[in-house]
Structure formats: C-alpha cells, structure tokens
C-alpha cells in the first residue's frame, strides 16, 4: 500500500452567520500517495468548504487534520503558509494568475518563495513545466493576455513548481469548454501516474469524476460514499 499523505479525523465545521449551521459533519477519510480522487455532491453540500480546510487556508474547524503525518492544529499563519508553499499545489476554478506578472513569473513565484533552488534552476523547472503542457511559447506573455484554457494550464504549472505532495483543485474544469477540460484531465492523470502526486479535485462534472480512481460523494455535510 502507498503511504498516507493526508488524513482527517472527525472534522466538524459550523457557519455562524446568520444562524449556526453545521456544514461538515464528522468527516474522516484519508488520501494515499498517487491517488486521484474526485469529490462530488450537490451545491452547498460542503465539498468546497472541506477542500479549503484541507488546504490549511481555513483554520476554523473542529477535529484533526494530518498532512504528511503532521497535525495542522494550532500552527501559526507563517507555518501554515510555509506548508502550503511546500506541500500543497492549488488550482482554482477561476484562473487567478497575478495579472501584473508574465506567465513565467507567475509559475516561478511560489518557487522563489520556497527558495530551495536558485533562480536559474527555478526558471528552468518552470520552463520545463510550461513546455510539457504545450504552452512554453507563452512564457513571456503578460498573464492577462492569454486564453482561459491556457491560464488554467499555467496555474497547474504554478501548482507543480515546488513538487507538492498533493494537488487540490476547486472545480478546475468548471469554467472550461470540453476540449480544455480534457486537456486538464489528461495532465492530472499523467501527474498521478508519472510523478506520484496525489490529486483531490472537487467537481460538478460527472464525466470528469467517473474517470478518477475514487469518488467521494458528499451530501449535507457527510461523506455518503
């Protein structure tokens, strides 16, 4: 069996505004290395909320979250930032590139932040990533000048720059046409099998979900399946 990358134990989450409302109810599951998991469920079932808790950006929950064997409870903002930088790659529904920077810079910034490699090496890695996704020719364009599908590939390249343990996606194909969705899916599939990263993708797209290794179906704050 592969190693466990991420594990949750009895996670509960409440929204208090306007009335207290439990959005996550006793969520316990784990993700192993190389697993490609999709999370599906109706709107408002709590799947995105769960994803942001797993990403360490949302710290307001009960229960425990382990990432790479370490508990995420009671850590400072700076520590969590470092963990996000090093171990988690994030792909959003909207592409969220920094419009002031070039495509290449966008991919490089998390790598420069981690500062594990020299700037030249990071630039080399970034170019490799872009080339492997067939968008190397866009490297020096401004980030806001490229198409939606291209942006999503750039943000995947950015998520990968620090070789994270796990890549999380919040509807990464939700805003793309069929052709681009397929491209993104193929990239994810390739990552899981070749570089051994785990993938956790929240999606509405049943076609996308059926192609993944495991589907977690959520309903009303619980894991149904």
């Amino acid at each position, binding site marked *: 069996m592969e190693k466990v990358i991420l594990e949750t134990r009895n996670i509960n989450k409440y929204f208090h505004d306007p009335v207290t409302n439990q959005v996550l109810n006793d969520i316990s599951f784990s993700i192993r290395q190389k697993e490609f998991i999709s999370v599906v469920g109706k709107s408002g079932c709590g799947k*995105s909320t769960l994803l*942001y808790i797993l*990403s360490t*950006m*949302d710290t307001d929950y009960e229960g425990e979250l382990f990432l790479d064997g370490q508990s995420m409870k009671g850590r400072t*903002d*700076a520590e*969590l*930032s*470092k963990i*996000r*930088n*090093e171990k988690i790659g*994030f792909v*959003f*529904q*909207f592409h*969220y*590139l*920094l*419009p*002031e*920077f070039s495509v290449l*810079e966008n991919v490089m*910034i*998390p790598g*420069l*932040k*981690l*500062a594990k490699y020299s700037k030249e090496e990071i630039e080399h890695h970034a170019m490799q990533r872009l080339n492997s996704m067939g968008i190397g020719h866009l490297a020096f364009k401004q980030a806001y000048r490229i198409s939606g599908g291209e942006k999503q590939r750039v943000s995947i390249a*950015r998520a990968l720059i*620090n070789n994270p343990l796990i890549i999380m996606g*919040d509807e990464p194909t939700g805003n793309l046409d069929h052709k681009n969705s397929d491209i993104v899916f193929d990239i994810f599939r390739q990552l899981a099998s070749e570089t051994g990263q785990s993938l956790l993708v929240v999606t509405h797209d049943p076609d996308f979900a059926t192609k993944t290794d495991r589907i977690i179906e959520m309903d009303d704050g619980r894991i149904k399946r």
Partner: protein
Amino acid sequence: MQFLLILNICKTLLLARLRQSVIAATGVTFGIAMFITLVSFMTGLNKLLDGLILNRTPHIRLYNEIKPMENQPVNLSKEYADHINIIRSVKPKDRPLQIYNSLAIIKALKTDSRVLGVAPKVTAQVFFNIGETDLNGVINGIDVQAEKKLFAFNDYVIKGNSHDLLTVANSIILGKGAAEKMLAKIGDVVQATSAKGERLPLKVVGIFQQGIADIDNVNSYASILTVQKLLGESNNYLTDIQVKLKDMNLAPQLAHQYQKIFRVDALDIQTANAQFQTGTNVRNIITYAVSITLLVVAGFGIYNILNMMIYEKMDSIAILKATGFSGRDVKWIFILISLIIGITGGILGLMFGYILSSIISYIPFETAALPAIKTYPVNFNILYYFIGILFALATTYIAGFFPAQKASEVDPVEIIRGK
C-alpha cells in the same frame, strides 16, 4: 532572497499601476519640497530679522550703571541691624561711568576659553553744533578691528570706509539720520561738544545705517582714542566691554559670574532682547506647523491610494496567500510599496526644495533698512534635508501601515469562494 523576491513583487505592482504610483509620489514630493523651501526661507528671514538686532548686540555687555547704592551705611551697621531703617530721597553717588581696571578685565576675558572675542567701547553723549542749533547724539568710540570681526560693523557702513577711522585723525562715521539732519557728506567737518563742554571738530569719513531709525538718528562712531580725547580722559577710560561668546546660550550664566568677579554690571543678550527670542520661536513653530500639515496631507494621499490598490489587488493577495505567502509577507509587500513611494517622492522633494529655495535666494530684495541684503535670505541647512527625508519616510510608513495591516488580514478563502 526572500527580501529580493518581495521587493521584486513591489516593483512589479508599482510599475503595473505607474500612474497611481506617480501621483502618490508627487504628493510626497510636493510636501517635502514645500517643507524644505518654507523652512529654508522662514529660517533665513528669521536669521535676518534676529541679525538686525543680535548681530550688533554683544552677548554680554559689561558697564557701570548709574544707580543708588543698594546698601546704605545704616543697613551695614550692626547696631541697627534689627531695626527697620527707612531712608528717603536716596541719590546715586557721583560714580564715573568708567570701568575700573578695564585693561586687566579685558586681558582676563581674552584668556577665557568660552569667549570668542572682546571689543571695548567708550560712549559719549554729545551735541553736534549746526549753526544755531544743537543736535543730540551719541558717539561710540570703538575698536574698529574687533567691531568688524565680532559685530559685522562693515556691513552697516553704507558709504565711506571704516578703516579711515584709524588712519584719519579726529574722524567720525555718522549715523544716516544724523548725517541727513546735518546735511553732512563725506569729507565735511562737524563740530561736536561733550557734556562737559569740550569741543572737537570731526571729519566725516563714512555713513552708517543699521536699519533702525532710532539708532541711525542718534548713534555715530569714532575711534576709541578720538572719543577719549573729546571727553578729556586718559587712554584707559572705557565705559563698555562687549563680549561675544562661542555659545550664546551661556550668556546669562556667564554674565552673572562676570558681575561677581569684576564687580561691574553685566547684561546678557537674552535679558536685553527677550522679545526677539520669543518672536523667533513663534515663527519657527508656525513654519513647522505648516510643513507638518503639508506632509500629513501628502500622507493621506498615499493612504488613499494604497487603500484603493489593496481593494484592486484582493485577488492577487488571495493568490499570494494560497501559494505560500504569509500575512506578514503580504504586509511587508504593501509597507515596502509605501516606503518606495516615500523614498522616491522624498528625494525628488529634497531636490525640488533645493531648486525652489535657490530660486528664492536669487530674487532681489532691496530695502533701505538692510543695506547688506540684496536678495531674499535663504538658510541652506543640511539638517532640514535630513528632517525632510525622515518626515517622508515616517509619514509614508504610517500611511502604508494600516492598509498593509488590512491586506495581511485578508482571508483568501473568502475572496476565492466569493466569485
């Protein structure tokens, strides 16, 4: 590395919104330039106004005052010590104005390390005789060299040459007002009579103007020897010893000391000209108040622009946080943006301030009251430039701090899910 990365992000953010950045920096530039110009010009004027009186005033003046004895004999007697002694109609003793042992005092003062220079003086009340009428006047017998060096005497001699007082026997430099009344020109001879009736013809070698009518109407200058001759006194007769100190602030304390040691009256400049000090202080306060107001306004400009920038950049802040930048990193990005605006704006402000104050210093400013001044006075003091750049940094730091704090508290989940 991390700092360079953050700096690089700042640079890109600033350049992406170049026009906004320039406007923010212009606000600082304007504030600092105005501060420098205002402070330089105001303190220049202040110095000029103070100089009007203070240049010509000794820091300590030693003299003998005509006054009744403080201790009448009856007060000194032991026999009546426990009595209440009332003495009416006390008159001052006929005590000469001469300072006793003046040469020894001067010698002692010159060896004092706190003293910059000493200038002896003899003053004499005279009448200038013009035909039928007599004109009241004061002739100051001065040590021309010392007076030039310590009290800028030459700046106030508008016609003729002060050196002639030494070379021409029985010569006089008349006050402008007095000269006009007597219709005296250089080369003319005027008649002066001392209080004791001695009469001496004096040759006019120059005209003096201090810019204060009361002084210029009455005061004239001659060499010490000439005045001693007019008074019929010996050459150790001096009525005033003027002392200029290295540090003017020591004057009250030293005046007190000299009074005790030399047994003469001593008047310090602070006591003699209290109103000028007050005026200077008030003008300085006004200058700083106006400058700080300008800088605060510039600071609000930066605050607004940074606030706007942060609202525009919410998405970018969320991305940075999602990809591993901590709240502290984000805060530093915005504080650095603010400081970069402050430094560039501030340095440009110093340059414009220097240029503006230089222009002012070339504008002609001629007034009869100030013969030595030809253009507006500007005080180029490096200290103001330091204060200026410090102000620029401090205001921009504070203006940037609060928006930066807000940016650091942005919850990325809220932004990302809010779409």
